[in-house]
């Protein structure tokens, strides 16, 4: 059977790929079929029935959103009967819909408003007894059932793309509403995607509510600056108030047809900095940089800034400290030494298409929600088998992962070796690799990592019919003592199997910084200038700075996302102070604007000479990502050799795992007034018994030569003897392995 189907829509010859629906083909060919409930990234809701079309030879109407075409069929998308049917549907939608467009936040961008006018519904022939419906306050999200048209977009997105599965339809005819699933109130990760997809004003951000009208806001397309997923978003800005004409960001929107955004991207947009120019502070900063032995910086900067720092290193001879990017770079170097490629091979899109995935070394749901949403999409749409290997179970991944593989903290190298052994069993590999695999002490590794042979066999069996396989390696691995060998094992798997490899960079631009800067080991010396990090002199876009810098939503520049895509950031809010380029110019570099460096980024690393202003930042109407550009693939020498597996370390007693709660990523999300700051140490009942602490106790945690005070929270969803220690409030150090032996004392 041929995979291409030829048929006609409104007399126009069109072709469909196998599996495409009539609506998809029509949209591809610029033929308009109105819809109310259709959303491209989920399976069809099929609740609105607006997309009805006539098919020649078929009695009655056909739903174009979920019907695939047959060869040679003639489709009519519009005639009098269809128009009448659609007009009647619109009239039904309008029954008792409150006439409060004047105050509704959705007015001006409301699907119901648009379609009501499109179908010219001026009178109402239908009626129903109205009901009293209470507005629900779900924290960041408000739900007004009176405005809800029951299109079910929100439930589909929540279940199929996000994976929270937190809302559900309460069926009851005209009394149907959206309710929190199996709970009194909404208990979810508050990604706010339901707000984004809601065609009417039923689901609304409670922070934004009634503060501005859609048409008053200016839209600034940019890229999210919180994690490495590089999600596209639009900041919507307007002057703060009549008395304060300076712009502020009112809300963040995304192209919800094709992309998703997590709650940090959507709600934690208020991380901007403000400052006035002070020549005195500036001179001090220049002097500090001139006399500095090293510059310590975080990976939450743009490529251009990283390049400037690199140039400053050459010019001033300072050292550059960034443990996070340095560890990532050495991990990638080890990977490249075996794979012969500079960049990992998979993208989030590949992950969405995958039907077999192994995730190792990442608490994905909080490390990188973009990866989690891709996994959810793969799971729901392709029935992907997803093996989630981690020392801690994650309830957020419960509905997505098909197999949880629990290994002991610290035994990642062993797990990777066992995984390689299993996947390369019947594969033709070179002699060296075969010898390495034959030499593995499987019994020891299985015993120490606590992952049984049968788990790998089950995994391999479930992958039997998979076509698109992806191995995902997370940020737990970068600071592991044996990180290099883990990277090499990942590269071996990528090289000899159908698995493509996705490595999750830990911060928004870890990837870019690791490529662009030649980093030194942080020696903890004195006389360090910190950029967004501690130091003797601090230039920072956070609080407590000696010289204030613009935050990532106040400057132009690019970042490299997990997809190896160079993405542009734009200025959403003004900043009156100095930026890094001004400092660099005072130190002898000569560029008027930071973005003049964009075209100068090293071509040998895969960058190309595109000017910043030539970078696009949008998705096509078909959902094609036309943002920035993809790094070119760069070949490098593959002379790496697998090392023998070292003894697996043991983690006994009270172990903490540096992992942030949902919505929190770093010091910038921590600045946001909108999202919750949960700085508690969260542990299971078993942990609380082992550490002899109870819920609500203030405890002193000593790890890695550091002591932190936190309140302990008993989390019934957690298991085992590892507790979660947040890092967004700047206590952890990127150079240390994320699992840490710790001493926990109750503070009396």
């Amino acid at each position, binding site marked *: 059977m041929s995979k291409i189907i030829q048929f006609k829509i409104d007399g126009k010859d069109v072709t469909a790929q196998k599996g495409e629906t009539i609506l998809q083909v029509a949209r591809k060919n610029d033929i308009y079929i109105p819809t109310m409930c259709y959303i491209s990234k989920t399976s069809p809701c099929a609740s609105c029935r607006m997309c009805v079309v006539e098919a020649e030879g078929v009695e009655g109407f056909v739903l174009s959103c979920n019907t695939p075409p047959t060869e040679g069929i003639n489709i009519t998308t519009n005639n009098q009967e269809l128009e009448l049917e659609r007009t009647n549907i619109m009239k039904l939608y309008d029954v008792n819909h409150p006439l409060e*467009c*004047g*105050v509704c936040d959705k*007015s001006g961008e409301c699907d119901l408003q648009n379609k009501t006018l499109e179908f010219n519904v001026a*009178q*109402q*022939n*239908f*009626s129903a*007894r109205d009901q009293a419906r209470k*507005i629900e306050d779900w924290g960041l999200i408000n739900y007004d059932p009176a405005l809800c048209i029951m299109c079910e977009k929100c439930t589909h997105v929540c279940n199929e793309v996000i994976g929270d599965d937190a809302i559900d339809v309460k069926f009851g005819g005209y009394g149907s509403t959206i309710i929190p699933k199996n709970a009194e109130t909404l208990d979810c990760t508050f990604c706010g995607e339901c707000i984004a997809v809601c065609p009417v004003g039923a689901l609304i951000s409670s922070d934004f*509510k*009634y*503060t*501005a*009208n859609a*048409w*008053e806001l200016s839209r600034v397309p940019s890229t999210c600056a919180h994690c490495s997923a590089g999600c596209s978003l639009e900041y919507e800005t307007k002057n703060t*108030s*009549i*008395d304060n004409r300076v712009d502020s960001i009112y809300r963040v929107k995304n192209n919800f047809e094709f992309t998703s955004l997590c709650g940090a991207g959507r709600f934690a947009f208020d991380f901007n900095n403000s400052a006035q120019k002070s020549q005195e502070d500036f001179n001090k900063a220049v002097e500090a940089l001139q006399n500095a032995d090293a510059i310590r910086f975080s990976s939450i900067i743009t490529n251009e800034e990283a390049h400037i720092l690199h140039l400053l290193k050459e010019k001033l001879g300072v050292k550059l400290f960034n443990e996070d990017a340095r560890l990532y770079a050495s991990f990638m170097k080890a990977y490249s030494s075996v794979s012969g490629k500079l960049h990992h091979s998979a993208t989030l899109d590949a992950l969405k298409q995958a039907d077999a995935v192994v995730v190792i070394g990442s608490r994905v749901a909080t490390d990188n929600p973009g990866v989690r949403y891709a996994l959810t999409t793969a799971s729901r749409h392709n029935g992907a088998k997803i093996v989630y290997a981690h020392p801690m179970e994650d309830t957020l991944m419960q509905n997505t992962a098909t197999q949880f593989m629990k290994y002991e903290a610290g035994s990642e190298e062993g797990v990777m070796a066992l995984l390689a052994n299993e996947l390369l069993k019947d594969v033709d590999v070179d002699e060296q690799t075969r010898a390495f695999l034959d030499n593995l002490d499987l019994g020891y590794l299985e015993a120490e990592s606590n992952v049984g042979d049968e788990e790998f066999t089950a995994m391999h069996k479930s992958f039997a019919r998979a076509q698109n396989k992806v191995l995902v390696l997370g940020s737990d691995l970068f600071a592991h003592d044996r990180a290099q060998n883990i990277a090499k094992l990942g590269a071996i798997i990528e090289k000899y199997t159908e698995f493509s490899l996705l490595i999750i960079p830990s911060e928004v631009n870890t990837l870019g910084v690791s490529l662009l800067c030649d980093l030194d080991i942080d020696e903890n010396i004195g006389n360090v200038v910190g950029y967004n990090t501690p130091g003797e002199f601090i230039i920072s876009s956070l609080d407590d700075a000696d010289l204030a810098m613009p935050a990532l939503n106040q400057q132009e520049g690019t970042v490299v996302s997990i997809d190896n895509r160079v993405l542009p950031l734009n200025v959403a809010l003004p900043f009156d102070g100095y930026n890094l380029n001004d400092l660099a110019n005072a130190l002898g570099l000569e560029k008027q604007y930071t973005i003049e460096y964009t075209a100068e980024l090293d071509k040998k690393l895969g960058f190309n000479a595109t000017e910043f202003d030539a970078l696009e930042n949008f998705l096509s109407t078909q959902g094609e990502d036309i943002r920035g550009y993809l790094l070119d693939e760069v070949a490098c020498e593959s002379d790496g050799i697998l090392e023998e597996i070292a003894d697996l370390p043991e983690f006994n007693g009270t172990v903490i795992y540096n992992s942030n709660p949902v919505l929190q990523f770093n010091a910038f999300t921590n600045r946001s007034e909108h999202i919750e700051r949960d700085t508690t140490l969260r542990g299971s009942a078993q942990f609380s018994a082992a550490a002899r602490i109870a819920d609500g106790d203030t405890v002193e945690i000593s790890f890695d030569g550091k002591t932190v005070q936190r309140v302990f929270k008993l989390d019934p969803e957690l298991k085992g003897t590892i507790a979660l220690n947040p890092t967004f409030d700047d206590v952890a150090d990127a150079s240390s392995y994320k699992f840490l032996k710790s001493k926990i004392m109750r503070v009396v």
Partner: protein
Amino acid sequence: MKMEAFNNRNVTEGDYYLVDIEDYPTDGWGKFKRVVKRSFRGELFVGLWVVLREMIRFDIHTIQYPQEKMPIGPRYRAIHEMKRLWESDTERCIGCGLCEKICISDCIRMDTRIDEESRKEVSEYTINLGRCIFCGYCAEVCPELAITHGGNYENASDQREHFVDYEYMLTPLDTMKANAQKEFEGFGAITPHEDERVKKTPLSY
């Protein structure tokens, strides 16, 4: 006369003729003769007679402004007023932002927020009368008949801001108590017998 005649710039053809103007006197004697001729023509007494006649009749149309003022038409568009609801005396404005949007001289600004009762509330509202051209679009578009034009045209002040304060525009509460709020009858206002013409939604219960 047709337009072509006006558009035709060629003065040599058509109905053009030269006005007969006497030559200007060049010497002193000539100038003196002209002054005497103009002064004693008698036209002066025509004007004096009109004044005298009206004075004797005592039919004076002059209004003693500012003690007296002319009544102005209901459609006159002077300084804006903000009306209150008859039922509850609360402000009619719901903060929909349509006046702000439609304003062609871009002089209306409002800040809105959610109030304690979860309703939309206007926290601040200004009209820049320096820019306002009193076109009346804001009053026309207002779905609540909240913003209207009033009859107060006396906007001379040392500061224009005196007229754009929301409190100033709002109908005073004692006017409401006295039932003396005047509805705007200009464009966009409710026409008489509006109730009878409303098409009702079929609510069969």
